[in-house]
């Protein structure tokens, strides 16, 4: 092996002394949102149609926001890259959506959901936001049922619930293994109703490639029509980004192939702060990769952990097939290590435990890169029919992909990138530091802190879109004087030119290697050094490797076809350009955060038994990064986190 000297990143990021203000109103948390709703300004119903709002993204957050603001009477334009808003990746969420209904009478409450979420996020979320999320969770279920979302029912006709990781109550509502699909269709249908009513104009196969900022306010976007290649500005009074997460920076993830960080990244480059980029969620139950041709990883819902038991051979290097390994030679490691939560331990903890098992030579499957998720006991206890009713579609999907029948032999699973808690920084009103730019759903840095609990992403997307944004956005309009902006404004022309310049530059490299080649290579670097566990040394190495790869990309990438037609290579190339830059910021953020918390695990900071070791003295803050130029270190703003309700404790699931 050749030895390369790793250049140490000695330059520490400049940080701004003045704390970043999340604009959380003061007062008791239980009544904060009610009071804020009253104190915010309103827009008269007859004036609403005069205000144009651009919403980018049509997943749970985007579609629900577009529909609700349309119902209120605003003039909405909604954009998505897919051929229909119904395809947004929220559709793929399997397991369920949390709410504090306490229909089980098992001790749940708004306060408990709030508590579990703050604790589950390893104390790196803003308390007031999380409380509000828990508070509106019940109204989401009501709204979805009224729309006709076919949630699972009991024989008496009442709604059913199941359990998810990180909670000791059953608060998860579900629609078979297709909860995300059904919730999205509910929001999509509400959106369709507004499109028919003329309040929402929908633009499909249209990608946002820049943010237009005029006199310090977000006033529009630049889009590319993916069918014709036409690049045009779209102006508005307010811009809302609901463009999801950036797990595809790892190349292999459970995200849809088209999911990308371009909208939020280009907003970052226009001045929006990017918060906690290193907080990424590696989901414990995905199908392990099988080879080089792998284009994505497939999630097996966390709900499977209600009935499946996770184990590996106790003896490292044991290659016997699972049925030949006797009970006493099986290591049910989650049940042994975390007896009170067992197989339903939170995602970050379960993922790291799986990695430890595989790293210690206990991995299973042909590539020894998985752990077993075994349903034999549940099938013995409940019968195959019950298991088929609960998870039939997941077992079918598993068989399609692996060729194995999980009713007969245990599933093999391994962690994979799944969700990003990091995202654009927003205040209590879901507005970024750029006035007029709101960010909702996974795209913002959100309410999940350093780790998201299962069934909370759907809850947050819909809370933002149905209830929170439609209350806070009008307040901005009502309290702001918005001057008229036209397409000949310099800022508009500059943004359009910027997009054209990037496009031309990509088309003109005319090198030899494909976009996917570089994306795979970037993914390997990110997974190796900024994945499930991280070290200062590894992160510094990544910060050296990424710019090298990026430079090679700009020298040698080949984008076939032309820019004036449907060109999937060009689309991918544009997204990858942003992933290079975002990947560097993720590593920088991970390097800056000298602690382990939630999904961010720095090997240097762990307890003797390998658990995450937080450093609340120094790092109980949101790290919000400000762009300072392509060649300059970004500037760090810190929003201090105060925990007045949920006491800062070591998170234990033992």
């Amino acid at each position, binding site marked *: 092996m050749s030895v390369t000297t790793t250049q140490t990143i000695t330059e520490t990021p400049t940080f701004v002394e003045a704390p970043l203000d999340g604009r959380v109103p003061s007062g008791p948390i239980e009544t904060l949102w009610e009071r804020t709703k009253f104190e915010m300004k309103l827009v008269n119903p007859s004036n609403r149609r005069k205000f144009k709002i651009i919403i980018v993204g049509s997943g749970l957050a985007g579609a629900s926001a577009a529909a609700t603001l349309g119902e209120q009477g605003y003039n909405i334009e909604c954009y998505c890259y897919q051929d229909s808003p119904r395809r947004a990746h929220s559709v793929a969420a399997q397991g369920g959506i949390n709410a504090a*209904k306490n229909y089980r009478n098992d001790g749940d409450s708004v306060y408990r959901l709030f508590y579990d979420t703050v604790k589950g996020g390893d104390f790196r979320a803003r308390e007031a936001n999380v409380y509000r999320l828990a508070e509106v969770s019940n109204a989401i279920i009501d709204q979805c049922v009224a729309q006709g979302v076919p949630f699972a029912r009991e024989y008496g006709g009442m709604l059913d619930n199941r359990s998810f990781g990180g909670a000791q109550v059953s608060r998860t509502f579900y629609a*078979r293994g*297709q909860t995300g699909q059904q919730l999205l269709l509910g929001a999509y249908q509400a959106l369709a109703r507004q499109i028919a009513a003329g309040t929402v104009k929908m633009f*499909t196969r249209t990608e946002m490639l820049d943010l237009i900022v005029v006199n310090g306010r977000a006033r529009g976007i630049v889009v590319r029509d993916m069918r014709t290649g036409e690049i045009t500005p779209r102006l508005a009074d307010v811009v809302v980004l609901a463009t999801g997460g950036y797990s595809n920076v790892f190349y292999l993830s459970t995200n849809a192939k088209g999911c990308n960080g371009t909208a939020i990244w280009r907003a970052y480059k226009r001045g929006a702060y990017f918060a906690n980029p290193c907080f990424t969620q590696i989901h414990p139950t995905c199908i392990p990769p099988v*080879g080089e041709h792998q284009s994505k990883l497939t999630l097996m819902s966390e709900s499977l952990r209600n009935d499946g038991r996770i184990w590996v051979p106790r003896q490292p290097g044991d290659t016997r097939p699972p049925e030949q390994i006797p009970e006493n030679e099986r290591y049910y490691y989650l049940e042994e290590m975390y007896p009170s939560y067992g197989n339903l331990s939170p995602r970050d903890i379960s993922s790291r435990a799986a990695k430890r098992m595989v790293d210690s030579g206990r991995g299973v499957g042909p590539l020894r890169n998985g752990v077993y998720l075994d349903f034999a006991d549940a099938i013995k206890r409940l019968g195959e029919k019950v298991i088929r009713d609960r998870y039939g579609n997941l077992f*079918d999907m598993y068989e399609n*992909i692996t060729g194995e029948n999980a009713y007969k032999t245990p599933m093999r699973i391994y962690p994979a990138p799944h969700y990003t808690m990091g995202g654009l920084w927003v205040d209590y009103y879901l507005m970024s530091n750029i006035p007029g730019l709101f960010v909702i759903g996974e795209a913002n840095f959100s309410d999940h802190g350093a780790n998201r609990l299962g069934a909370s992403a759907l809850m947050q997307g819909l809370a933002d879109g149905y209830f929170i944004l439609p209350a806070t956005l009008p307040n901005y309009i009502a309290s702001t004087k918005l001057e008229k902006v036209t397409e000949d404004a310099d800022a508009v022309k500059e943004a359009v030119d910027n997009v054209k310049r990037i496009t031309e530059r990509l088309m003109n490299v005319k090198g030899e290697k494909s976009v996917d080649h570089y994306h795979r290579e970037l993914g390997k670097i990110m997974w190796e050094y900024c994945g499930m566990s991280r070290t200062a040394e590894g992160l510094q190495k990544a910060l050296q490797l990424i710019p090298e790869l990026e430079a090679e990309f700009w020298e040698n990438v080949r984008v076939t076809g032309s820019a004036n037609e*449907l060109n999937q290579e060009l689309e991918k190339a544009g997204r990858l350009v942003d992933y290079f830059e975002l990947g560097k910021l993720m590593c920088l953020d991970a390097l800056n955060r000298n602690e382990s918390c939630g999904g961010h695990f720095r090997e240097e900071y762990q307890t003797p038994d390998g658990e995450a070791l937080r450093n609340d003295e120094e790092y109980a803050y949101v790290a919000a990064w400000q762009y300072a130029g392509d060649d300059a270190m970004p500037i760090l703003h810190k929003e201090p986190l105060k925990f007045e309700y949920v006491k800062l404790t070591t998170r234990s699931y033992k």
Partner: protein
Amino acid sequence: MRLKLRIWRQKNAQSEGRFVEYNLDGVSEDSSFLEMLDLLNQQLIDRNEEPVHFDHDCREGICGMCGLMINGIAHGPKAAVTTCQLHMREFKDGDTITIEPWRAKAFPVIKDLVVDRSAFDRIIQAGGYISVSTGQAPDANVIPVPKTQADRAMDAAACIGCGACVAACPNGSAMLFTAAKLAHLNSLPQGQPERYDRAVLMVNQMDAEGFGGCTNIGECEAVCPKEISLDFIAMMNRDLLVANLLGKGKR
């Protein structure tokens, strides 16, 4: 595996398309059908040719974006899967595979294997929803929904809007798609107030988009990756009949 691929190439909606033959070597049995096309595209890019364009997104069988006619069967030879969930172990070494886009009057080709399915969105916009604005909902458990009814609604709601039903139908009919949405909403108590209007409005839109009529051939059900039942079409026809008797569907 070694394969011979016959793929429909078409530069854009205006130009004429044609089949082009490709030989592809080194395909893993464990790869998905779309990963096989990724491999082909990688080789085309290496040769400085334009890769084959096809729609895809989630690659886990739920978004409904992918859809190819494979040897004349929508989504290929395996029942109840989307193209992205079809794996190469369903094929043999040396096979010739013909790959075409969905072909239907209402789904014009955009490029190669990519078609425009926006007609489906317009059918939903015509009435495929329950008119309840955010904030109007009562408590979720106020209206009990018997489990069997909720399950039937879910069976219908499982439709992913991929368009395989239309592509498989000799008439290019969108009856199964439209009926699935009607059955989903019309099976539930929440859907009753607009039940008959919804049936008329959605069917009228379906006709206006240029989809054909149903002659009970059943190809749609056979290829549906979500196994949506033909029975829903009967339910739609019943609702449509009642709606006409009641003079519904005028808004």
